[in-house]
């Protein structure tokens, strides 16, 4: 029982990553591909944060009478990764808008010739 219980966070990270990747590959609409990409990345953020948590420790902000803190380094890395994820989403969505105005559609099966298919 302890194996499942201890690793529950890791199972959820794996499932979310698989869902995110599945959406990115099978989504027919480009906006949904971007949503899938975000879900895929958020799974990685969850992996880093569960890595840094110490059971019985509180948040890494100094408070009197507290000795055990969680590890601040994964939090710093994930702060960077979240902003990188939003930056990629913004550029991806503006590309989707330009594709809509250039092709008139953002559905993958409606692109005519093969080389346009995403």
């Amino acid at each position, binding site marked *: 029982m302890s194996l499942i219980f201890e690793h529950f966070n890791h199972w959820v990270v794996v499932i979310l990553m698989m869902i995110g990747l599945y959406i990115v590959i099978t989504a027919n609409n480009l906006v949904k591909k971007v949503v899938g990409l975000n879900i895929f990345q958020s799974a990685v953020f969850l992996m880093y944060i569960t890595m840094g948590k110490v059971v019985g420790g509180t*948040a890494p902000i100094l408070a009197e009478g507290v000795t055990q803190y969680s590890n601040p380094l994964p939090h710093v890395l994930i702060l960077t990764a979240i902003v990188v994820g939003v930056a990629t989403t913004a550029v991806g969505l503006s590309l989707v808008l330009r594709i809509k105005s250039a092709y008139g559609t953002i559905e993958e099966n409606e692109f005519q010739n093969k080389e346009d298919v995403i």
Partner: protein
Amino acid sequence: MDSVLAASGLGILIVMAIALARAMVAPTVYDRILGVNMFGTKTVLFIATIGFIMGRPDFLDIAIVYALINFIGMVAVLRFFEYTSESN
């Protein structure tokens, strides 16, 4: 006292789950927006309770940000929803 706090945290979590169910299975789009709005306000309360459960009540800034983003999200949904219904 902390067992009462934990119980109320769990209670709010259950209400959040019901609101989430409403947001997922919704006859009309307005019901979905309603579910999301209720989910948002309940999360604000949940974060406040979690702050107290974990003994670090000075984290209420996050609850404030939640309330903010929930309101702005609500306005954005209403605003762009009128556009999408016109555009197709």
